[in-house]
């Protein structure tokens, strides 16, 4: 028997290998591959997500993030291939297929031609895609939708999608399916962005002029993504026009921006540089006197350089650098004080594309990212000087290699390795005074490695069944701890009939870092910290199921339900905050401030879209519940998360009246955030120690608040708002000028931002609501040349 087993095992393995490889081995004799790059006509910008399909057989593939595609088909005198992508005119190509072919295609943007042709070709049919819970936002759509103060913002458009919620009024922070902002992986050209916000969360870092693609994955994560529990926002910067110098200048109410792109060596090397700066500080400066100054500004800069080394090799260098700075100075005859709060991100990515052969594509990336926060304060009087400096931050250096292998149209295999070296500096404080010595709370530095190996296959099992099956092995190393976690991923699609499919997915995710946040809205004071023994790594499991239906005239509908569990979610202990350096037992670290618990989120999402024609837009609705439970919070009982939102509705419409005028509007409604409010106040007697006596009863009295014995027991008033915008475009001699007038909060809804207590004239305490933004008109000019 043992002998049989000895032989049987290799035999079994060989048979299995043969069964798996047989279709490719047998068919390879009579099959050839067509491969190449899909680019935009006029700019030679690589186009990701283009569908390449053979109408006669229905075989199809998609271009990857670098515009590369590969499709292997049986030998034929001629094959027809249609290249199509939303926003571009489809192209039909007839190719003789007697040998492997290189075929690169330019697609013309519909925005570049006068009349938009409604195509019947295959464009992003949601019923056919195996991936569920994915949102693609065309960058042009971001520019069409009205925005607060006219500042176009990718993240705010994402907030209009079902399953994605905003934190508070005006905030760019987003919550996906019950996960906090820390559970969203935000990637810009492969680099992780740790704090994606300017102006305390009101605007995102991402300058739409520099972006090429924006994709948000809410569930059913492919194995190539990992490191966060709830969502992946993957953004690619434009490569830069390879044919002509192009540019765009925009002047808005609070900021101006400029983008220039063009060839350095035509068709071989191009660049893009895009910058933006606010001028609130310059505008308010005349109203300040020398002794009282307050100011704020932010700026950001995106730059990219790419070089086609050969037919098989391409090089991309890209970077982002941005900074926010708030400052205040006061001075009189007796004292002076100055304070500053600054934070900034920097990322740099070097990528090398290499084509091993027409079916195997590789991308190797080296990435650096840095986020830092600095708070400083100095107080001087005639006798004393007191200063405080608080710093925190995170730095990553990482390497990533990803292979795209397309053996035949039924398989699209991606595999690779990813390794990140993290350096966490969760908070250091320096206190100085004229009378006392320097008091330094150096803060701990943490170093860790996060590694992953992954493989996934987008597998067309039959005409009706399609699957994306993946596996990710993640690893985390901190000090001498080595943690390995398997993460299975699967997405399935069953095509019931043409245009109607059922989908399901399961994904397990691990997150080896935490964001400590008192507010949950993505303030710069939030601290990134690594998973440690006291703050163990987080795990989530998510199952989702749904229906996708494509209708005529560009309508599609998706309905999805999901259930997600989260383990080791972190929260501050009651009474703790990021700035707490000491408690009654002495100096404390961030680990003493936190506690871990569990979370549950479940709900349903409906999205009805119209993607084609003069009128486009969508209706989104989310019904959801999110609950948390921590042993040390709320007496161990479950409570609703601050961002638990029962109902969330968004209506978005963009109407191109003609090629000169576009009008757009949005309306949003959301159940109010869950909040904790004090209901009663009383004097509590505490056990204490007498001076100079002994421990004794009721020696200490404290005034305390009662919050109804339940955390987040109350709801803010519901949030709703409508925005309208109108754009006028005019073709000038050398540029297209666009003037946009927009109105934020058209019907002047007073949405709550926060609540506070205020005594009235009669001495009674009232709960007051502060609203932030009334109706706000805004305008922007832009010139595109």
């Amino acid at each position, binding site marked *: 028997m043992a002998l049989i087993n000895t032989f049987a095992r290799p035999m079994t393995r060989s048979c299995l290998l043969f069964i798996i490889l047989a279709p490719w081995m047998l068919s390879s004799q009579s099959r050839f591959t067509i491969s190449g790059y899909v680019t935009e006509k006029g700019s030679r910008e690589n186009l990701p997500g283009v569908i390449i399909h053979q109408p006669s057989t229905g075989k199809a593939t998609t271009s990857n993030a670098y515009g590369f595609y590969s499709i292997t088909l049986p030998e034929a005198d001629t094959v027809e291939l249609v290249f199509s992508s939303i926003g571009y005119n489809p192209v039909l190509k007839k190719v003789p297929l007697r040998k492997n072919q290189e075929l690169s295609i330019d697609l013309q943007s519909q925005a570049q031609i006068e009349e938009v042709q409604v195509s019947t070709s295959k464009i992003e049919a949601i019923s056919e895609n195996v991936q569920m819970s994915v949102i693609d936002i065309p960058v042009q759509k971001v520019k069409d939708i009205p925005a607060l103060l006219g500042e176009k913002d990718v993240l705010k458009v994402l907030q209009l999608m079902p399953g994605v919620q905003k934190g508070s009024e005006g905030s760019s922070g987003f919550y996906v399916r019950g996960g906090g902002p820390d559970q969203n992986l935000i990637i810009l050209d492969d680099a992780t962005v740790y704090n994606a916000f300017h102006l305390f969360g009101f605007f995102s870092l991402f300058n739409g002029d520099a972006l090429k693609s924006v994709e948000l994955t809410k569930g059913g994560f492919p194995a190539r993504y990992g490191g966060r529990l709830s969502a992946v926002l993957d953004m690619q910067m434009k490569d830069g026009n390879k044919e002509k110098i192009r540019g765009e200048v925009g002047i808005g*109410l609070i900021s101006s921006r400029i983008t220039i792109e063009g060839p350095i060596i035509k068709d071989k090397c191009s660049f893009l540089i895009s910058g933006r700066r606010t*001028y609130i500080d310059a*505008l308010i400066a005349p109203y300040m006197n020398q002794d009282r100054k307050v100011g704020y500004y932010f700026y950001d800069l995106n730059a990219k350089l790419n070089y086609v080394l050969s037919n098989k090799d391409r090089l991309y260098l890209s970077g982002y650098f941005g900074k926010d700075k708030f400052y205040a100075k006061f001075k009189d005859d007796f004292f002076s004080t100055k304070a500053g709060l600054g934070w900034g991100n920097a990322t740099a990515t070097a990528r090398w594309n290499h084509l091993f052969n027409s079916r195997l594509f590789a991308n190797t990336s080296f990435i650096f990212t840095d986020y830092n926060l600095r708070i400083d304060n100095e107080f001087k009087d005639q006798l004393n000087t007191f200063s405080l400096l608080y710093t925190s931050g995170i730095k990553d250096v990482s390497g990533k290699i990803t292979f795209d292998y397309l053996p035949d149209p039924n398989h699209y295999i991606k595999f690779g390795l990813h390794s990140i070296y993290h350096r966490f500096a969760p908070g250091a404080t320096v206190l100085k005074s004229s009378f006392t010595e320097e008091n330094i709370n150096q803060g701990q530095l943490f170093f860790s490695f996060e590694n992953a190996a992954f493989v996934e296959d987008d597998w067309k099992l039959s005409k009706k069944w399609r699957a994306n099956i993946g596996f990710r092995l993640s690893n985390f190393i901190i000090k001498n701890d080595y943690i390995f976690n398997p993460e299975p991923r699967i997405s399935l699609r069953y095509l019931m009939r043409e245009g109607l499919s059922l989908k399901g997915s399961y994904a397990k995710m691990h997150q080896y870092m935490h964001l400590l946040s*008192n507010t949950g809205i993505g303030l710069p004071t939030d601290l990134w910290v690594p998973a440690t023994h006291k703050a163990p790594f987080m795990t989530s499991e998510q199952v989702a199921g749904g229906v996708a239906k494509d209708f005529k005239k560009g309508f599609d509908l998706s309905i999805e339900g999901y259930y997600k569990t989260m383990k080791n979610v972190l*929260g*501050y*202990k*009651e*009474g*703790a*905050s990021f*700035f*707490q350096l000491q408690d*009654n*037992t002495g100096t404390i670290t961030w680990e003493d401030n936190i506690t871990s618990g569990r979370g549950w989120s479940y709900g349903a999402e409906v999205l009805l879209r119209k993607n084609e024609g003069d009128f486009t837009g969508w209706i989104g609705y989310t019904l959801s519940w999110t609950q948390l439970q921590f042993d040390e*919070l*709320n*007496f161990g009982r479950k409570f609703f998360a601050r961002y638990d939102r029962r109902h969330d509705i968004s209506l978005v419409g963009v109407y191109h009246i003609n090629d000169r005028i576009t009008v757009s509007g949005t309306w949003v409604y959301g159940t109010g955030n869950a909040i*904790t*409010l*004090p*209901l*009663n*106040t*009383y004097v*509590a007697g*505490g*056990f*204490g*120690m007498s001076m100079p006596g002994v*421990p004794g*009863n*009721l020696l*200490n009295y*404290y*005034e*305390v*608040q*009662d*919050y109804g*014995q*339940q*955390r987040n027991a109350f*709801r803010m*008033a519901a949030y709703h708002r409508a925005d309208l915008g109108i754009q006028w475009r005019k073709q000038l001699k050398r540029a297209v000028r666009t003037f946009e007038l927009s109105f934020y909060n058209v019907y002047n809804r*007073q949405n709550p931002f926060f609540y506070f207590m205020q005594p009235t004239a009669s*001495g*009674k*305490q*009232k*709960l*007051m609501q*502060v*609203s*932030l*933004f*009334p*109706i*706000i*008109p805004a305008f922007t000019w832009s010139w595109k040349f």
Partner: protein
Amino acid sequence: MELEILKMKKLYSLLAAITLVYGCTKEANIKLPEPEEKLVVTCFISPEESLISVLVNTSKPRYNTSWQANTEIKDAAIVIRSAEGAATIPYVDSLHLYAIETSEFPILPGKTYTLEAKSNDKSCSAVTTVPTDTLHIRNLTVSLQFSKDSTALDAAYSTQVADIPGQTNYVSIFQRHLLLMPYDSLYNQPGDMLNPGYGIFEDDEKQPRENYGAFTQAYSARSSEKIRYDSFIVEVWALNCSREFYLYNRSVQEAAWTTGNPFSDPVMVYTNMNNGFGCFGAYRLSKRIQVK
């Protein structure tokens, strides 16, 4: 460009004016419970104490009521009960508390007690069980180290408490030390020192903890004067607390510690009072003194 900026300034001022006019503060329109005053009753009992004292006042709803500094109640009916009997606890003016000697109503280890309070139309009650055992203070280590020139002194002491096996221990440690010395030998300090330390801990059975209350204190003399002292006395009290005692006192401490910090998360103050606030808890007390 300058003209554009001038126009922008005007527009910015206009927008700021609009924001001031329309962006506003108004009374919140959200559903809140009807304001209701409740009794706040706090009492901790121990077989080692000679007095049962009870603090009684009322809570004030935060909304639609006026702030009131003095909410003390002197006319409440306070009754403490056990399986063996009951006693009414009277108000004692000199203490500003309701109090009764334990000689009149003994508190016994392992027994369960109920405290009831009634005042006008308000009433509340709570139950607690006195821990059976006292904690054994296994070790109290004291060290005193002079600097080479004797102008500085480091005092350190730590306490070891033996866990009661097979249960979660709720431990509270009080410490104080006394450095007895000739007056004025320390820089800017009186002749004797007192530093009470206080901590309260949940000691999970799965992760036993024995070391509590490590404490250090540095003294330095004025100029080059040498420190002289007569004796250094450390006193430690270890409380074996009921769960209610622990939850309440810990949460009250946290609430007090974070008062005024706008970044802090709210602290839920524990109560075991049915239909009221406050706490009825119990503890056993043990003590150790070390003189050096």
